């Protein structure tokens, strides 16, 4: 290959997307870093001086925006070799209390948006008979935690998407994989959207959710940074045969192993204990 591989990345205004686009650009990829709001591009722009990195607008929720960005990349670079589906956010609240609208919004970005970009990119990858797609999943795609049940449901679905898509596009020499970080210190916790009812006194779940929320904020402190995830993504791209899953972070690697070894009733006891603490502790 005499030309630089072309990478399209979603959700690059902050966090994992931003770090990944910088790392790939430094490693010789021609990077198209996309974000839904170009007003947030200054930190990436400053960090990317001198690198082969271009910033484009792409809101994964909007079909027109996805189409426009993908055809812009194809026009400029002629191919797309790598797609990193990173854009996503977390809904926070009790499963019972989300509205239809909140449920739709959460799935729209984390799942339907991911599929929308993937489907837009696949024809080009099939034509060129090569390509790699990495979905940014999560530990939350393998274990469900109370208070982020809806987010977990989107990430479980992303696991199913990756597992099935991987086999569907393999005949076209396209590889699909999943990077599963545990808790990472990014703007993720600030970008979380709480269920509206969260703020209402009448919510029966409010006291316990408040404590779960505080606890999860605490956990994000001192967690690995997004550059760790970028490193894992690069490793996946370099593996000749990309594996299905790449977990990273102590929690993402070891919690599922523990879950795997425990009989399911023991696992449930442990999870319930954890959650039960929040029920009992005074606010």
């Amino acid at each position: 290959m005499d030309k630089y591989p072309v990478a399209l990345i979603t959700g690059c205004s902050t966090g994992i997307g931003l770090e990944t686009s910088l790392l790939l650009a430094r490693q010789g990829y021609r990077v198209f870093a996309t974000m839904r709001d170009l007003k947030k591009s200054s930190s990436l722009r400053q960090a990317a001086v001198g690198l082969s990195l271009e910033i484009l607008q792409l809101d994964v929720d909007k079909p027109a925006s996805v189409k426009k960005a993908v055809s812009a990349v194809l026009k400029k670079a002629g191919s797309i070799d790598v797609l990193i589906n990173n854009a996503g956010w977390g809904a926070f609240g009790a499963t019972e209390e989300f509205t239809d609208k909140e449920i739709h919004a959460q799935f729209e970005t984390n799942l339907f948006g991911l599929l929308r970009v993937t489907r837009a990119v696949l024809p080009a990858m099939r034509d060129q008979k090569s390509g790699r797609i990495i979905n940014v999943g999560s530990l939350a795609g393998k274990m469900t935690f109370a208070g982020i049940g809806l987010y977990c449901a989107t990430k479980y679905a992303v696991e199913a998407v990756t597992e099935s898509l991987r086999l569907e596009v393999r005949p076209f020499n396209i590889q699909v994989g999943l990077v599963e970080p545990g808790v990472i210190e990014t703007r993720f916790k600030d970008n979380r959207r709480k269920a509206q009812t969260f703020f209402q006194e009448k919510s029966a779940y409010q006291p316990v959710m408040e404590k779960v929320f505080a606890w999860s904020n605490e956990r994000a402190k001192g967690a690995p940074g997004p550059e760790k995830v970028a490193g894992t993504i690069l490793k996946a791209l370099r593996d000749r045969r990309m594996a299905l899953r790449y977990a990273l972070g102590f929690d993402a690697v070891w919690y599922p192993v523990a879950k795997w070894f425990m009989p399911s009733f023991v696992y449930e006891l442990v999870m319930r204990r954890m959650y039960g603490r929040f029920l009992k502790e005074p606010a």
Partner: protein
Amino acid sequence: MNSRPVVLVTGANSGIGLACAEAIARKGYRVYATYRNPRKAGHLWRLSRSLPLFPLLMDVNRTPSVQKAVSQILKKEKRVDALINNAGFVMAGFWEDLSDKDVRDQFETNVFGLLRVSRAVLPFMRKQGSGKILNIGSVAGFAALPGLGAYSATKFAVNSITEALRMETRPWGIDVTEINPGEIQTSVVQNARLGERVKSPQSPYTPFTKYFENFSKERFEKAAPVEKLVGVVLKALEDRPMKRRYLVKLDDYFTYYLRWLLPDALWEWGLGIMFPWSRFPR
């Protein structure tokens, strides 16, 4: 008689829903058997003459329809003891052959619909301090299949929702479980929808789709009778507490434990033998 537990079943006019509604009513529970299409409710009305089974209109895709049905039940019974989230369908097709709308429709019923009905009954279950929710998942909820990606993704999501609800609602004495059947003899295949571009001559997946159709036809020839699943549902209704998940056939246990035991690479190698389209001539 009015002290008999009240059970709400969604998608009860056909297949698993119908069989469960009837069997549960025979056990003496008061069953609200819901359907979305009045023209398909004939059988339910006939059953309602001899059993404590009450047909009721409910389209799980529509919030007003769900709320109306639930409030009718509560007005009459002042309680709801169990909910069986069964309404669902299969959207078949390779991912690239599905449109945005196909994917959204699949989730609207299988996931958002399930959440919609659960959310409608949960406030009352919390008030009465008891209740059971049984979600009809699928083997596809822990083992995703190519050609059935969208359906698998909905059932993976149900898997997670079951787990979350189980933890979150337990303090109010509510118990949530999931039943993960493999192939069961119902109209599920006839009622399956095909993605927008599945039959398009331009689809690059046509040979694989054909292969997959044969594969699933063969699998469904070995489908278990619905009674087998009904037995499991009846058991779950009586279990206290309910298990995290119930499997149905020996086959399903086999898939479950294989998926659990095998590393990804081995599992995929197996799937590669089942779906050998990487080796198809092109």
